[in-house]
């Protein structure tokens, strides 16, 4: 498996050097692996810190900036970051109003952020946490680690980030973040496995004529494998699953997310089918975002995320955001 890298060991550090060189509006601490918005801490503002394994870019580092995250902590590829990073990030961005940790629900992320929260609180930083758990492909039962956090992370970070930017106190930022998560559902498919630099090849085998339904963003195997389906069939399957879970009764935000190696041309064609499928099920779409936002290295495939919104959430979604990966408003 050819990769545009030097050696697997330096992949994350190399990417951080590139981020630093390319985006002077960010403070990138390459050694300690923390990405911070340049104007942090922002006086009087609750700070948002997130992080997770690398390989999902632009998540999370690409979402650092006004209206979204104050800091991000990238771990090794597909490996949650360590508490030291999170504590350092929290200390760098806390203005005294407290910090919200946005944590994707994976055992590693949860354990490390939990430890970090304890340590940060020891340093006098007020910390709240929100777990993102939107992936309906996983049974949410006593017999699993619970639903995985995937595309809804973007919705949580954007909307809670906007609330924080407006001056909302920690409790409200936290409750909005939780609400966005509760109102979101996702489902993803893989047409190919992803390859991690350390492994140097595909992390799972996907036969030539098959696709993986319900794949995770680290290439975790999904619900089932099937013979390859058309864009239309995949959209119907994914929309059915997500809508059955969410049962939205007001308009939704729609994320049509590329896994990393699916061409934008295909992704927009898929978006057309998702819009059709939602329309046929009487789900109104308030806003659509199409692109590679929560990726899985070089995986081919896509996921959809719906978030049911009311006027307040929609206003926060539309609020200005100025990050490397997401940018609108003034």
């Amino acid at each position, binding site marked *: 498996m050819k990769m545009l890298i030097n050696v697997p060991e330096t992949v994350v550090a190399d990417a951080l050097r590139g981020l630093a060189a390319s985006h002077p509006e960010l403070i990138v601490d390459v050694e300690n692996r923390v990405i911070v918005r340049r104007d942090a801490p922002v006086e009087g503002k609750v700070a948002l810190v997130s992080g997770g*394994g690398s390989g999902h870019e632009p998540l999370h580092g690409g979402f650092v900036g006004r209206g979204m995250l104050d800091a991000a902590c990238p771990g*090794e590829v597909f*490996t949650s970051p*360590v508490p030291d990073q999170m504590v350092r990030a929290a200390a760098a961005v806390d203005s005294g109003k407290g910090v919200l940790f946005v944590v994707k629900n994976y*055992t590693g992320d949860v354990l490390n952020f939990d430890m970090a929260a304890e340590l940060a609180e020891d340093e006098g930083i007020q910390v709240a946490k929100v777990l993102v758990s939107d992936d309906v492909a996983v049974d949410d039962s006593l017999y699993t680690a619970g639903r995985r956090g995937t595309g809804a992370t973007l919705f949580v970070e954007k909307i809670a980030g906007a609330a924080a930017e407006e001056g909302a106190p920690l409790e409200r930022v936290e409750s909005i973040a939780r609400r966005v998560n509760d109102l979101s559902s996702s489902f993803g498919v893989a047409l190919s496995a992803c390859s991690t630099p350390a492994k140097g090849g595909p992390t799972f085998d996907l036969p030539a004529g098959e696709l993986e339904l319900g794949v995770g963003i680290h*290439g975790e195997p999904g619900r089932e494998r099937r013979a390859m389906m058309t864009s239309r069939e995949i959209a119907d399957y994914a929309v059915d699953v997500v809508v059955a879970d969410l049962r939205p009764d007001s308009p939704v935000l729609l994320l049509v997310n590329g896994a990393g190696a699916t061409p934008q041309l295909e992704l927009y064609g898929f978006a057309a089918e998702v819009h059709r499928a939602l329309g046929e099920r009487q789900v109104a779409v308030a806003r659509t975002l199409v692109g590679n936002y929560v990726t899985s290295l070089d995986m081919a495939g896509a996921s959809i995320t719906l978030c049911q919104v009311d006027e307040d959430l929609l206003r926060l979604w539309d609020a200005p955001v100025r990050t490397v990966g997401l940018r609108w408003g003034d």
Partner: protein
Amino acid sequence: MSSSEPAVDDVLDTPFFLRWLIAAAGSVDREAARLTDLDSAIGDADHGTNMQRGFAAVAEALEKEPPGSPGAALVLAGRQLISKVGGASGPLYGTLLRRAGKALGDAEQVTPRQLADALRAGVDAVAQLGGATPGDKTMLDALLPAVEALGAGAGSFPAAAEAAEKGALATVPMQARKGRASYLGERSVGHQDPGATSSALIIAALAEAAR
């Protein structure tokens, strides 16, 4: 009784603990690809590199700031794992060693029985932190039998190693209920748990250190 089967009243000094941790680092390094392959089947293909990175940091730290007691060695190693690994295994293994180290206090020498009790406390902390119970197809399924063997066998390292190895093998038919492998449901059956496998390596290193 061979030197690798210490009697209850044998004492384990700081150099023994250093040998143990270095031996663990060595076998984790040698077996990294296998651990990653196991993790690739039911996880995210990083357990080998995680352990490799963590124990390399442990070895480096032990060299840089040589600890003055067995307890200090384990606490230092645990702290390194927490600071360097990430993922699920970092906090869990870090907690195991830190808690065991704290249980040993700052005694300069400890008995195998004391080590068994300290590891037992560490394993209990892992169970509490991760919320797993035996049979969930996690590192606990190797660690628990190992500390039990260690306690019962009056500190027999080979017995502990054998119990850990058997425990790791016993994860094959289990369905995962914790960690990343749990997402697979029934599809996790038939694969050996990577964390239980690395646990068996770490326990086996005890016997190596004792030789």
